[in-house]
Protein backbone atom coordinates (compact mmCIF):
# COMPACT_ATOMS: atom_id res chain seq x y z
CA UNK A 1 0.00 0.00 0.00
CA UNK A 2 1.24 3.41 -0.93
CA UNK A 3 0.02 6.78 0.24
CA UNK A 4 -1.27 9.28 -2.30
CA UNK A 5 1.11 11.93 -3.57
CA UNK A 6 1.82 14.81 -1.24
CA UNK A 7 4.47 17.45 -0.68
CA UNK A 8 6.86 17.29 2.24
CA UNK A 9 8.18 20.22 4.24
CA UNK A 10 10.62 19.80 7.10
CA UNK A 11 10.45 22.73 9.49
CA UNK A 12 12.91 23.71 12.20
CA UNK A 13 10.51 25.67 14.41
CA UNK A 14 6.81 25.61 15.30
CA UNK A 15 6.53 29.20 14.07
CA UNK A 16 7.64 27.98 10.66
CA UNK A 17 5.03 25.20 10.84
CA UNK A 18 2.36 27.79 11.62
CA UNK A 19 3.35 29.78 8.52
CA UNK A 20 3.08 26.74 6.25
CA UNK A 21 -0.24 25.66 7.78
CA UNK A 22 -1.58 29.19 7.44
CA UNK A 23 -0.65 29.39 3.76
CA UNK A 24 -2.23 26.04 2.88
CA UNK A 25 -5.26 24.73 4.73
CA UNK A 26 -4.77 21.21 3.38
CA UNK A 27 -1.29 20.90 4.86
CA UNK A 28 -1.05 18.59 7.86
CA UNK A 29 1.45 18.23 10.71
CA UNK A 30 3.56 15.06 10.79
CA UNK A 31 4.66 14.24 14.35
CA UNK A 32 4.82 10.54 15.30
CA UNK A 33 2.77 9.60 12.26
CA UNK A 34 1.39 6.42 13.81
CA UNK A 35 -2.21 7.34 13.00
CA UNK A 36 -1.39 9.56 10.05
CA UNK A 37 0.45 6.91 8.01
CA UNK A 38 -2.36 4.32 8.13
CA UNK A 39 -4.85 7.06 7.19
CA UNK A 40 -2.68 8.09 4.25
CA UNK A 41 -2.29 4.51 3.07
CA UNK A 42 -6.01 3.86 3.33
CA UNK A 43 -6.52 7.14 1.41
CA UNK A 44 -8.77 8.46 4.14
CA UNK A 45 -6.97 11.79 3.93
CA UNK A 46 -5.20 13.57 1.08
CA UNK A 47 -3.08 16.36 2.51
CA UNK A 48 -1.33 18.78 0.15
CA UNK A 49 1.78 18.87 2.32
CA UNK A 50 3.05 17.02 5.35
CA UNK A 51 4.78 19.46 7.66
CA UNK A 52 7.37 17.38 9.51
CA UNK A 53 8.09 18.80 12.97
CA UNK A 54 10.31 15.89 14.10
CA UNK A 55 13.50 17.93 13.70
CA UNK A 56 12.21 20.93 15.66
CA UNK A 57 14.57 21.18 18.65
CA UNK A 58 13.46 21.24 22.30
CA UNK A 59 9.97 19.78 21.92
CA UNK A 60 10.63 16.45 23.66
CA UNK A 61 10.55 17.71 27.23
CA UNK A 62 8.59 16.44 30.21
CA UNK A 63 9.01 19.40 32.54
CA UNK A 64 7.94 18.70 36.10
CA UNK A 65 7.35 21.92 38.00
CA UNK A 66 5.92 22.56 41.47
CA UNK A 67 2.44 23.50 40.24
CA UNK A 68 2.24 21.84 36.83
CA UNK A 69 3.72 19.38 34.37
CA UNK A 70 4.45 20.54 30.85
CA UNK A 71 4.70 18.00 28.05
CA UNK A 72 6.27 19.09 24.78
CA UNK A 73 4.64 18.48 21.41
CA UNK A 74 7.15 15.77 20.45
CA UNK A 75 7.04 13.69 23.65
CA UNK A 76 6.53 10.06 22.62
CA UNK A 77 4.25 7.72 24.55
CA UNK A 78 7.29 5.67 25.53
CA UNK A 79 8.89 8.65 27.30
CA UNK A 80 5.82 8.90 29.54
CA UNK A 81 5.85 5.14 30.09
CA UNK A 82 9.40 5.15 31.54
CA UNK A 83 9.31 8.44 33.46
CA UNK A 84 9.78 7.52 37.14
CA UNK A 85 8.58 10.88 38.43
CA UNK A 86 5.29 10.55 36.56
CA UNK A 87 4.74 7.08 38.04
CA UNK A 88 4.96 8.77 41.45
CA UNK A 89 3.01 11.96 40.76
CA UNK A 90 0.30 10.81 38.34
CA UNK A 91 0.46 7.03 37.72
CA UNK A 92 -2.54 7.49 35.41
CA UNK A 93 -0.19 9.04 32.81
CA UNK A 94 2.27 6.13 32.40
CA UNK A 95 -0.59 3.66 32.94
CA UNK A 96 -2.24 5.22 29.91
CA UNK A 97 0.98 5.24 27.88
CA UNK A 98 1.68 1.52 28.35
CA UNK A 99 -1.79 0.64 27.11
CA UNK A 100 -1.47 2.49 23.81
CA UNK A 101 -0.86 0.38 20.70
CA UNK A 102 2.36 -1.61 20.92
CA UNK A 103 6.02 -0.82 21.72
CA UNK A 104 6.94 0.26 18.19
CA UNK A 105 3.95 2.59 17.99
CA UNK A 106 4.78 4.03 21.42
CA UNK A 107 8.36 4.74 20.33
CA UNK A 108 7.13 7.19 17.70
CA UNK A 109 3.58 8.21 18.55
CA UNK A 110 3.14 11.44 20.52
CA UNK A 111 0.64 12.63 23.13
CA UNK A 112 0.07 15.88 21.24
CA UNK A 113 -0.43 14.03 17.96
CA UNK A 114 -2.96 11.74 19.57
CA UNK A 115 -4.95 14.75 20.79
CA UNK A 116 -4.80 16.50 17.41
CA UNK A 117 -5.90 13.30 15.67
CA UNK A 118 -8.89 13.07 18.07
CA UNK A 119 -9.83 9.46 17.51
CA UNK A 120 -12.95 8.96 19.67
CA UNK A 121 -11.38 5.80 21.15
CA UNK A 122 -7.96 7.32 21.89
CA UNK A 123 -6.59 6.72 25.38
CA UNK A 124 -4.96 10.05 26.31
CA UNK A 125 -8.09 12.24 26.37
CA UNK A 126 -9.70 10.29 29.25
CA UNK A 127 -6.63 10.71 31.42
CA UNK A 128 -5.93 14.30 30.46
CA UNK A 129 -9.55 15.26 31.12
CA UNK A 130 -9.41 13.58 34.55
CA UNK A 131 -6.18 15.45 35.32
CA UNK A 132 -7.78 18.74 34.16
CA UNK A 133 -5.07 19.25 31.55
CA UNK A 134 -5.13 21.83 28.83
CA UNK A 135 -3.64 22.15 25.37
CA UNK A 136 -1.41 25.07 24.50
CA UNK A 137 -1.95 26.06 20.89
CA UNK A 138 0.35 28.19 18.79
CA UNK A 139 -1.30 29.99 15.89
CA UNK A 140 -0.99 33.05 13.69
CA UNK A 141 -2.30 35.42 16.38
CA UNK A 142 -0.18 33.84 19.13
CA UNK A 143 -0.74 31.36 21.93
CA UNK A 144 -4.01 30.20 23.46
CA UNK A 145 -4.81 27.51 25.96
CA UNK A 146 -7.86 25.24 25.79
CA UNK A 147 -8.94 22.56 28.31
CA UNK A 148 -8.65 19.07 26.79
CA UNK A 149 -12.41 18.45 27.21
CA UNK A 150 -13.14 21.49 25.03
CA UNK A 151 -10.27 20.86 22.63
CA UNK A 152 -11.86 17.77 21.06
CA UNK A 153 -15.23 18.67 19.54
CA UNK A 154 -16.18 15.41 17.81
CA UNK A 155 -14.77 12.38 16.02
CA UNK A 156 -11.42 13.39 14.47
CA UNK A 157 -12.35 17.03 15.03
CA UNK A 158 -10.73 19.62 17.29
CA UNK A 159 -10.80 23.36 17.83
CA UNK A 160 -7.52 23.70 15.94
CA UNK A 161 -8.07 26.38 13.32
CA UNK A 162 -6.13 27.24 10.21
CA UNK A 163 -2.45 27.69 10.96
CA UNK A 164 -2.73 26.32 14.48
CA UNK A 165 -0.49 23.70 16.03
CA UNK A 166 -0.23 22.16 19.52
CA UNK A 167 2.91 23.39 21.26
CA UNK A 168 2.53 21.65 24.61
CA UNK A 169 0.17 20.00 27.06
CA UNK A 170 -0.14 21.47 30.53
CA UNK A 171 -1.19 19.31 33.46
CA UNK A 172 -1.85 21.08 36.77
CA UNK A 173 -0.50 19.62 40.00
CA UNK A 174 -2.46 19.64 43.23
CA UNK A 175 -1.19 19.58 46.78
CA UNK A 176 -2.06 16.87 49.27
CA UNK A 177 -2.86 13.23 48.79
CA UNK A 178 -3.60 12.79 45.09
CA UNK A 179 -4.39 9.43 43.48
CA UNK A 180 -4.91 8.70 39.80
CA UNK A 181 -5.45 5.73 37.56
CA UNK A 182 -6.50 4.76 34.03
CA UNK A 183 -8.35 1.55 33.26
CA UNK A 184 -9.08 0.35 29.75
CA UNK A 185 -11.25 -2.42 28.40
CA UNK A 186 -9.87 -3.79 25.15
CA UNK A 187 -10.67 -6.81 23.00
CA UNK A 188 -7.03 -7.77 22.45
CA UNK A 189 -3.61 -6.47 23.48
CA UNK A 190 -2.83 -3.10 21.97
CA UNK A 191 -6.30 -2.55 20.60
CA UNK A 192 -8.33 0.62 20.77
CA UNK A 193 -10.41 0.99 23.91
CA UNK A 194 -13.91 -0.45 24.04
CA UNK A 195 -14.10 2.02 26.87
CA UNK A 196 -11.42 3.77 28.92
CA UNK A 197 -11.90 5.54 32.25
CA UNK A 198 -9.43 7.70 34.16
CA UNK A 199 -9.95 8.96 37.67
CA UNK A 200 -8.13 11.46 39.82
CA UNK A 201 -8.97 11.70 43.51
CA UNK A 202 -7.78 14.16 46.10
CA UNK A 203 -8.07 12.70 49.56
CA UNK A 204 -8.26 14.57 52.86
CA UNK A 205 -6.26 13.44 55.88
CA UNK A 206 -9.02 11.13 57.12
CA UNK A 207 -9.11 9.43 53.73
CA UNK A 208 -12.38 10.93 52.55
CA UNK A 209 -12.60 12.18 48.98
CA UNK A 210 -12.22 15.94 48.74
CA UNK A 211 -12.37 16.11 45.00
CA UNK A 212 -12.94 13.59 42.24
CA UNK A 213 -12.35 14.13 38.55
CA UNK A 214 -13.22 11.58 35.87
CA UNK A 215 -12.51 11.29 32.15
CA UNK A 216 -14.12 8.78 29.78
CA UNK A 217 -13.10 7.79 26.28
CA UNK A 218 -14.62 5.58 23.57
CA UNK A 219 -18.11 5.86 25.05
CA UNK A 220 -19.44 8.54 22.73
CA UNK A 221 -18.51 10.69 19.76
CA UNK A 222 -15.90 12.44 21.87
CA UNK A 223 -14.19 11.92 25.20
CA UNK A 224 -15.98 13.60 28.07
CA UNK A 225 -16.08 14.38 31.75
CA UNK A 226 -19.11 12.81 33.46
CA UNK A 227 -20.38 15.91 35.16
CA UNK A 228 -22.72 14.35 37.66
CA UNK A 229 -21.36 10.93 38.57
CA UNK A 230 -23.80 9.18 40.83
CA UNK A 231 -22.78 8.91 44.47
CA UNK A 232 -22.81 5.49 46.08
Amino acid sequence: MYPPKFGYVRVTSLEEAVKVLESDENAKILAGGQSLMPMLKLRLIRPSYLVDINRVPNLSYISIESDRIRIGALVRHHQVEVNRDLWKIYPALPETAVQIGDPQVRNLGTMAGSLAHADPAADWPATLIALRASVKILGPPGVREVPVEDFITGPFTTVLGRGEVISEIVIPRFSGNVKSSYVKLERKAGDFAVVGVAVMLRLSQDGSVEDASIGVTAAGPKPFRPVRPRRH
Partner: protein
Amino acid sequence: MLVHFLREDLGLTSVHVGCDTGHCGACTVIMNGVSVKSCQVLAVQADGAEILTLEGLAKDGKLHPIQEAFWEKHALQCGYCTPGFIMETYWLLSENPNPTEEEIRRGLSGNLCRCTGYQNIIEAVKLAVQKLKELKTMQ
Protein backbone atom coordinates in the same frame (compact mmCIF):
# COMPACT_ATOMS: atom_id res chain seq x y z
CA MET B 1 7.84 4.36 2.85
CA LEU B 2 11.08 3.48 4.64
CA VAL B 3 10.40 -0.25 4.22
CA HIS B 4 10.30 0.08 0.44
CA PHE B 5 13.48 2.16 0.39
CA LEU B 6 15.31 -0.40 2.54
CA ARG B 7 14.15 -3.36 0.45
CA GLU B 8 14.03 -2.03 -3.07
CA ASP B 9 16.76 0.60 -3.15
CA LEU B 10 19.21 -0.78 -0.60
CA GLY B 11 18.46 -4.49 -1.09
CA LEU B 12 17.99 -5.10 2.64
CA THR B 13 15.38 -7.79 2.15
CA SER B 14 15.28 -8.99 5.75
CA VAL B 15 12.87 -6.11 6.28
CA HIS B 16 9.59 -7.77 5.38
CA VAL B 17 6.33 -6.27 4.25
CA GLY B 18 3.68 -8.16 6.19
CA CYS B 19 0.40 -6.38 6.75
CA ASP B 20 1.54 -2.97 5.51
CA THR B 21 -0.91 -1.35 7.92
CA GLY B 22 1.22 -1.18 11.05
CA HIS B 23 -0.14 -4.22 12.84
CA CYS B 24 2.26 -7.11 12.26
CA GLY B 25 5.76 -5.75 13.02
CA ALA B 26 7.47 -7.79 10.25
CA CYS B 27 9.11 -4.56 9.02
CA THR B 28 10.55 -3.60 12.44
CA VAL B 29 13.95 -1.91 12.27
CA ILE B 30 15.96 0.12 14.77
CA MET B 31 15.95 3.81 13.86
CA ASN B 32 18.17 6.10 15.94
CA GLY B 33 18.20 3.53 18.72
CA VAL B 34 14.48 2.73 18.96
CA SER B 35 12.36 0.12 17.25
CA VAL B 36 9.95 1.37 14.63
CA LYS B 37 7.71 -0.17 12.02
CA SER B 38 9.35 0.89 8.79
CA CYS B 39 6.05 0.68 6.92
CA GLN B 40 4.83 3.55 9.10
CA VAL B 41 7.77 5.89 8.53
CA LEU B 42 8.47 7.88 5.39
CA ALA B 43 11.87 7.22 3.86
CA VAL B 44 12.51 10.97 3.87
CA GLN B 45 11.95 11.06 7.63
CA ALA B 46 14.91 8.74 8.05
CA ASP B 47 17.24 11.12 6.20
CA GLY B 48 20.45 11.17 8.27
CA ALA B 49 19.17 8.55 10.72
CA GLU B 50 21.09 5.50 11.85
CA ILE B 51 19.18 2.37 10.82
CA LEU B 52 19.91 -1.14 12.00
CA THR B 53 18.30 -4.08 10.21
CA LEU B 54 18.76 -7.80 10.73
CA GLU B 55 21.59 -7.70 8.18
CA GLY B 56 23.61 -5.63 10.64
CA LEU B 57 23.35 -8.02 13.59
CA ALA B 58 25.75 -10.81 12.63
CA LYS B 59 29.39 -9.79 13.00
CA ASP B 60 32.39 -11.44 11.27
CA GLY B 61 30.31 -14.36 10.08
CA LYS B 62 29.06 -15.06 13.61
CA LEU B 63 25.40 -14.85 14.44
CA HIS B 64 24.24 -12.39 17.10
CA PRO B 65 23.27 -14.14 20.39
CA ILE B 66 19.61 -13.33 19.73
CA GLN B 67 19.84 -14.99 16.32
CA GLU B 68 21.58 -18.02 17.87
CA ALA B 69 18.85 -18.27 20.49
CA PHE B 70 16.08 -18.16 17.87
CA TRP B 71 17.89 -20.91 15.96
CA GLU B 72 18.51 -23.13 18.98
CA LYS B 73 14.98 -22.81 20.36
CA HIS B 74 13.44 -23.26 16.91
CA ALA B 75 11.60 -19.97 17.31
CA LEU B 76 10.30 -19.96 13.79
CA GLN B 77 8.20 -22.00 11.46
CA CYS B 78 7.82 -20.20 8.15
CA GLY B 79 10.26 -17.48 9.24
CA TYR B 80 8.43 -14.55 7.72
CA CYS B 81 7.95 -12.70 11.01
CA THR B 82 11.39 -13.64 12.38
CA PRO B 83 13.49 -10.60 11.37
CA GLY B 84 10.88 -8.32 12.95
CA PHE B 85 10.76 -10.39 16.13
CA ILE B 86 14.56 -10.42 16.37
CA MET B 87 14.85 -6.66 15.90
CA GLU B 88 12.12 -5.99 18.46
CA THR B 89 13.85 -8.39 20.86
CA TYR B 90 17.09 -6.49 20.23
CA TRP B 91 15.41 -3.26 21.30
CA LEU B 92 13.54 -4.85 24.21
CA LEU B 93 16.75 -6.29 25.66
CA SER B 94 18.65 -3.05 25.14
CA GLU B 95 15.98 -1.29 27.23
CA ASN B 96 15.49 -4.08 29.73
CA PRO B 97 18.30 -6.67 29.78
CA ASN B 98 16.54 -8.82 32.36
CA PRO B 99 12.85 -8.98 31.47
CA THR B 100 10.27 -11.20 33.14
CA GLU B 101 8.20 -13.48 30.93
CA GLU B 102 5.32 -11.03 31.25
CA GLU B 103 7.61 -8.19 30.11
CA ILE B 104 8.81 -10.27 27.14
CA ARG B 105 5.22 -10.97 26.11
CA ARG B 106 4.24 -7.33 26.42
CA GLY B 107 7.46 -6.24 24.71
CA LEU B 108 6.68 -8.37 21.67
CA SER B 109 2.99 -7.51 21.49
CA GLY B 110 3.58 -5.43 18.36
CA ASN B 111 4.79 -8.46 16.40
CA LEU B 112 2.53 -11.15 15.00
CA CYS B 113 3.43 -14.74 14.12
CA ARG B 114 0.74 -16.33 12.00
CA CYS B 115 2.26 -19.78 12.50
CA THR B 116 1.52 -19.09 16.18
CA GLY B 117 5.04 -20.01 17.20
CA TYR B 118 4.90 -17.69 20.16
CA GLN B 119 5.89 -20.20 22.83
CA ASN B 120 9.24 -20.96 21.23
CA ILE B 121 9.80 -17.28 20.51
CA ILE B 122 9.39 -16.51 24.23
CA GLU B 123 11.77 -19.37 25.05
CA ALA B 124 14.29 -17.99 22.55
CA VAL B 125 14.16 -14.53 24.09
CA LYS B 126 14.78 -16.05 27.53
CA LEU B 127 17.78 -17.94 26.11
CA ALA B 128 19.02 -14.74 24.43
CA VAL B 129 18.90 -13.01 27.82
CA GLN B 130 21.15 -15.76 29.23
CA LYS B 131 23.52 -15.65 26.27
CA LEU B 132 23.88 -11.88 26.43
CA LYS B 133 24.52 -12.06 30.19
CA GLU B 134 27.24 -14.69 29.71
CA LEU B 135 28.78 -12.61 26.96
CA LYS B 136 28.84 -9.61 29.27
CA THR B 137 30.54 -11.50 32.13
CA MET B 138 33.10 -12.91 29.68
CA GLN B 139 33.99 -9.38 28.63
